[in-house]
């Protein structure tokens, strides 16, 4: 019997190595797998490259991962938040590397990684400093930059419901980056508010089929707090 549900956070985090590229779902705090981030802190992997839309708020979740010094580099679209105190200090002190990627390009690069597309052309950022040094090519009279797939060694995902095959369903705008990140990593770990019986999820609204998910942890934390 396939059972991807793991009973301890330690089991969920097993095997994550120093230097790993870690994709972290969420848009702000909605859909962000905070319990898994805390699990990763306890697990101890360091020198990480984190890919996430933001760079942490206050001192919890992603900000805490940065604060305890585990992140060498962050790839994100929008480090500015209501309280980016941790990232700001590390960045100013030159203790963290920042790679700013347009949000849609980040989403598409992750999607490409999951879909077996090594590279694609996009109009986004042409003629701006974010296209500097990149290959630019014309198709049908318009210019596009070449962007590469963005793979993860690990993806940390948050979902609303999960079953033992790792099928995930999301809730409202908490879907965001989670499905593309789940497909883009070698090892995908999901936290879910609810574990349901196999067959309980509507097959028309599975947001991430279990083929993309390796481990599921039950984390019924209740309502997220917008930060």
């Amino acid at each position, binding site marked *: 019997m396939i059972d991807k549900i793991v009973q301890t956070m330690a089991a969920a985090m097993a095997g994550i190595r120093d230097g790993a590229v870690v994709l972290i779902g969420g*848009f*702000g705090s*909605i*859909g962000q797998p905070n319990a898994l981030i805390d699990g990763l802190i306890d697990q101890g992997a360091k020198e990480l490259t984190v890919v996430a839309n933001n760079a942490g708020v206050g001192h919890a979740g992603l900000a805490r991962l940065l604060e305890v010094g585990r992140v060498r580099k962050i790839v994100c*679209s*929008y*480090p*500015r938040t*209501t309280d*980016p105190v941790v990232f*700001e200090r590390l*960045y*100013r002190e030159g203790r963290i590397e*920042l790679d*700013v*990627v*347009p*949000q*849609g*390009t980040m*989403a*598409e690069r*992750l*999607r490409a990684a999951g879909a077996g597309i090594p590279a694609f052309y*996009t*109009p*986004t*950022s*042409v*003629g*701006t*400093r*974010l296209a500097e040094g990149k290959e630019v090519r014309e198709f049908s009279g318009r210019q596009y930059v070449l962007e590469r797939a963005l793979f993860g060694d690990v993806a940390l995902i948050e979902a*609303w419901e999960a079953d033992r095959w790792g099928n995930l369903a*999301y*809730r*409202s*705008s*908490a*879907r*965001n*980056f*989670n*499905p*593309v990140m789940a497909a883009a990593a070698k090892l995908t770990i999901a936290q879910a508010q609810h574990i349901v019986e196999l067959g309980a999820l509507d097959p028309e609204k599975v*947001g991430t089929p279990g083929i993309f998910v390796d481990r599921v942890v039950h984390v019924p934390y209740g*309502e*997220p*707090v*917008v930060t």
Partner: protein
Amino acid sequence: MKAHMRAELNGLAACKPWTRDEIAARAARDIPEGFYVNLGIGIPVLVANYVPAEREVIIHSENGVLGMGPTPEPDKINRWLINASKKYVTLVPGGSYMHHADSFAIIRGGHLDLCVLGAFQVAENGDFANWLTSADDTMPSVGGAMDLAVGAKQIWVLMEHTTKTGGSRLLRRCTYPLTAPGVVKRVYTNLAVIDVAADGFVVRETAPGLTFAALQDLTAAPLRRAN
């Protein structure tokens, strides 16, 4: 005394600049029924409050919401439903959710009729800058702006006409790093509604009591009157 300050004293004595809400309302009036629209952070998000109730305009939020409705009553908040500014919103009947790659496929694929964005600077050639105020910003945050700028069928900018120190935000050429070249179609400021035509800025409307000459004095690029 600098030219723009003289102009402020001369031309603005009798002028009632539009408030932020009035700028938003003025832009809302111009959005036709059936338009699919994305509203950026700042004055643009206020536009949603001013679309006439009987006119169906469908609002997209890049974090995976199509058919965004107004701020919920405090006791009716869905804590998994936020907009791109990370504020609680609602979903209108006919709305739907999608993941980030699908959301930016809508944006990049040219499916939005209109995107309304804030900006620091707009140039007479349609270039605009809204993500970095100088070359050494410590928190370069691009978000989805570059994708929206090149993807939507039409870009409008809503912003204050001048900076806090009175400098013009409408320029011959942008001095800040670009978000995208040559895409802005129209600018709504607290002082005027201005089209960006092939040959530069064309004034369609000015705030009550503001003369064309006074507006020109406050604007660091030549203006033409609309025919």
